[in-house]
Structure formats: C-alpha cells, structure tokens
C-alpha cells in the first residue's frame, strides 16, 4: 500500500494541519517509508490474540460521580490566546 499526495492532504485536513504542496510532497516520501516499516505487521498471525491496550490490563479506574467546581479559573485561563469575561474567544462560527 502506498499513499498518494491526495491521501496526505486528506489526512492533514482531518488532523487540522495546514500543509503546502511542497510539504505534502516531502511528507509523502517519509510517510511511505514509515508505512513500509509498519507493513511488516500484516504478515503476523494474530488469530485468537486479544489486543493489548494497556500494559497491566483491566479497566481504568473512574472517580466518584460527584460535581466539582473548577479550581482557580483565572489561573487556568491565563494562557488563553484570546478571552473576555472568563470566556474563551474564537472566530465567529454561526452566521
């Protein structure tokens, strides 16, 4: 399997990364090299083997389902690129 330039652009769009044609072209060669490495996995017989999602197995612990208030809103928001009255500002979404 080999990616094409349009595959790279589609993936980049899904990943919300802007790529120029030159960048996509460069990424194409490197990604295909990496996928050649990954292709080795296709020949491994894994029938009957459970996927391993976590080294120690089991399910993840959940905390008690109780409401908590955000600690220190001001400190949490001080890195926001744009904000007003404790709200994050983004470009207009709905016309």
């Amino acid at each position, binding site marked *: 399997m080999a*990616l094409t330039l349009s*595959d*790279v652009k589609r*993936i*980049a*769009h*899904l*990943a*919300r*990364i*802007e*790529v120029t044609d030159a960048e996509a072209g460069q*990424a194409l060669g*490197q*990604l295909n*090299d*990496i*996928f*050649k*490495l*990954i*292709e*080795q*996995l*296709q020949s*491994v017989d*894994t029938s009957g*083997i*459970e*996927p*391993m*999602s*976590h*080294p*120690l197995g089991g399910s*993840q*612990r*959940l*905390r008690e389902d109780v409401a908590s208030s955000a*600690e*220190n809103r001001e*400190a*949490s*928001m*001080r*890195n*926001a*690129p*744009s904000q007003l009255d404790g709200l*994050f500002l*983004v*470009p*207009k*979404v709905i016309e």
Partner: protein
Amino acid sequence: MFKKSVAELGRALIAGEVSAVELARIFLERIESHKDLNAFLDVRPEVTLAQARAADARIAKGEATPLTGVPIAHKDIFVTRDFHSTASSRMLKDYLSPFDATVVEKLGSAGMVALGKLNCDEFAMGSSNENSHYGNVLNPWDKTAVPGGSSGGSAAAVAARIAPAATATDTGGSIREPAAFSGVTGIKPTYGRASRWGMIAFASSLDQAGIMTRSAEDAALIFNAMLGFDPKDSTSVERAHEDYTRSLDLDLKGLRIGVPKEFFGDGLKPDVEKAVREALAEYAKLGARLVDISLPNAALGIPVYYVIAPAECSSNLSRFDGVRYGHRAAHYADLIDMMKKSRSEGFGPEPKRRILIGTYVLSHGYYDAYYIQAQKVRRIIADEFQRAFRECDLIGGPVTTSVAFGFGEKAADPVAMYLSDLYTIPGSLAGIPGMSIPCGFGAKNRPVGLQLMANYFDEARLLGAAHRYQQATDWHLRMPKDFA
C-alpha cells in the same frame, strides 16, 4: 561538592557540612558556566533559592528527608507552576501551568530543590534531541555527538554534573537511550508506578516517568519519594508503598540474567557488543548465572510502536487547537482555518509526522488493519517477556545498536532514527521496568550503556543488581573531562 552523589549530598546537608542555599548556588553557577550545552530551557535563581531556603529551615528543625535540600532538574515535559512548561515546542512557548505535575510535587514535598527545566525532543518525540524547537543539546562527552533523546537535556545535565539528578520520561526508550549515549544511570519503572498527572501526554499507554542519576543507589532513593499511587492518574497502580533501597545489598549469587539472542544480531556494532559482553561477564564473575533466552518477535516492536505511539499522539495532541492555551496564528479566515494554521505553525516536523501517521491508522477502514493488529502484536511481544522471565530473573543486553551518533547523521531519515530504539521499545510495549547503566566506552570514546530489564514491579531487585555492578566497577564515576 558538585561531584557528590544524591545520597552523599543528602548526608552532607543533614550533617551541616553544606547548606541547601550553598548547594543551589554551586549548581546554578555550573548551569550558567556550561550554557553552551543548551540543557536548560528555564532557570529562575529566585525560585530555586527560595526553595533552598525552605529546605534549610526544614533541616534546622530536624524534619529533613534524605533528599531535603538536594537539587534536581525537571524535564520540560512535566508541568510546573514556577517555571515555563513548553514540551520543547513552539506550541507552548511561555506557557505557565496553574499546577505542578504530581512527580514534581512529590519530589518538592520531600524537600528537593528545583534547578529549572530541561530541554528535550518536542513533545518527547525523538531519539537525538534534534527535534527541540529551542535547539540541540550537546553531549558533554563529545560536543559533536547527540546526547540521545528524548530526555537529552536530563542526560546531558547529569553527565556534566550541572545537576545531581534529573527527571525524565520514557515512551519507547527516551530515558534509557540518552542515559546510554551520555554515560549516566537512567531507569523507567513499571508502567503505572509514576503518576502521569501533569506529564504532557504523548502516548498514554506507554508514557512513564523515571529518573537519571549518577548511580542506581541515587535512583532508588529518589524513587522512594517519586513513585506511588495517584488518584489523579486513571492508570496509576494501587500498591502499598515500597522501599526501593531494600535490595541494594542484593546477593548476585545464583541471580539468573537472561541474554536475548535477538539483541546481539546484525545491527549491533562491535564496540557496543564488546562493552556489553564484558559487563555481562562481570556479572558472571560476581556470581550471577547468564542464561540464553529468546524474544523472537522483539524486532516487531518498532512497527508496533510506530502505529500505537502515533495513534495515541494524534489523539492527545488534538487538544492543541489555539483556543484554550498554546499558540494561535495571527491571521486566519475562520475557526477551522485558525486551528489548522495554529497547529501548523505551533508543531515542528516530527510531531506533525506522527500526527499524520496516527490520524491515518485510526481512520475509517484502517483501524482494524493497523491499530488493532498492532495491539495484538504488542501482546505477543509482552507474552514473550513473561515466558522469558520463567527462565531468568533479569534480562541484560545492549541499550542501543551504536554509541551516540553525530548531529545531522539521521535527522533527514525518520526510519533510520526510529530504528535506534530497537532494543528499548520491546520493554516499553510490555510496560516492564528497564534501565541503562554505564558499562564502558566505544567508538570515538563515547559511552556505552548496559540495559537491564526486570519483570513488573521488580524495580528493587533491578536497582540492587545495578548497584552491585556499580560497586564492582567505576564506569558510572567517570566524568567528561571538560566538566570534571
């Protein structure tokens, strides 16, 4: 004073031979005079000295721990309230965390004094530290060589003795490989032992914090304060507190060290093989029994890793959207364009590459063929370790195929760079503890590391075996000559 171990510094502080403030000044001065290494990204003497004064007050009250007043530096993957937290990325330039990572907080509670934040590969992605937005870290043994990555700043700082110890993180080898390249002791514990709270996430099922020090004894002392259950990390393991120094006097007689034949194949350079074989022979001389073992599918670790790690990375790094924190582009047309431009400008080439791979392997139609298949092969590799540990207590072999390479040698070829983690990735996929200890020098007089791995939760024995080797040899005491 800067040549002393963490254990020695702790004792000197309690005995009143030196104050925490004096020690902090000694190391701050060394950091300043070795700035060319580019190991540190953020140093704030006023923060460090305030922590040192608090440590001195605690010592005066007789409430010191063995670590109180001992300086430590933190990899810039751990968020900190008092220093910038950048993950070596433009994306997080000037970011100030509202809280401290649990690891940072726990070491601070023990009284350790933070010297600042250490350079690393961007978002901990890399094997040479050449992926930092803030420039290369130099290897103190040879400034034309890479220090290894991703924890390159941690390794260089400890090797140059500009910090007695440094936190680090390991996803596929990011503690062991730089420890080997820079000639220091580095250990990652069992997955789940160290809290991931406040560790900027790369691949969550693999990321694990650890430590770099001069010696195994120092690592054991620091693990006592650093590890433990944290309710804020959903994959943190609930187990009783352990004393990681309890097996430092381990009797090597009869200890079975498994030597995997797959770790001594074609790719291994003769200089590294020679030093590693000599180290294993030293263990045999000390009473250990070397056992031939096999990890037949270990080499598949690399393809497995380069599916799973990018998949998890693409998911984790989706939080950088230019809205809540991180870089936002100056000019854009609409919301999607703002996100695309912000991410495109904020991330460097390696995170972008991995985000693209991850997005692809998780996308519709490829999820089962790549991601699920990789998770299945991951289990095959983990099971092979379990079979091996029926025949041996520890596993020993090389950390890397070669000594540290030069800047630019592999930077243009991602696959060549990825292959440098051949021997460290399998243990990361299994989630077992692993370490690198200095065991000699190879080509161009660059350091070689011996890798030791143990089964889950067997860190105390691993540290004990490393400590006994360090009592019988002096490789870990050698220092790069410009820094002695």
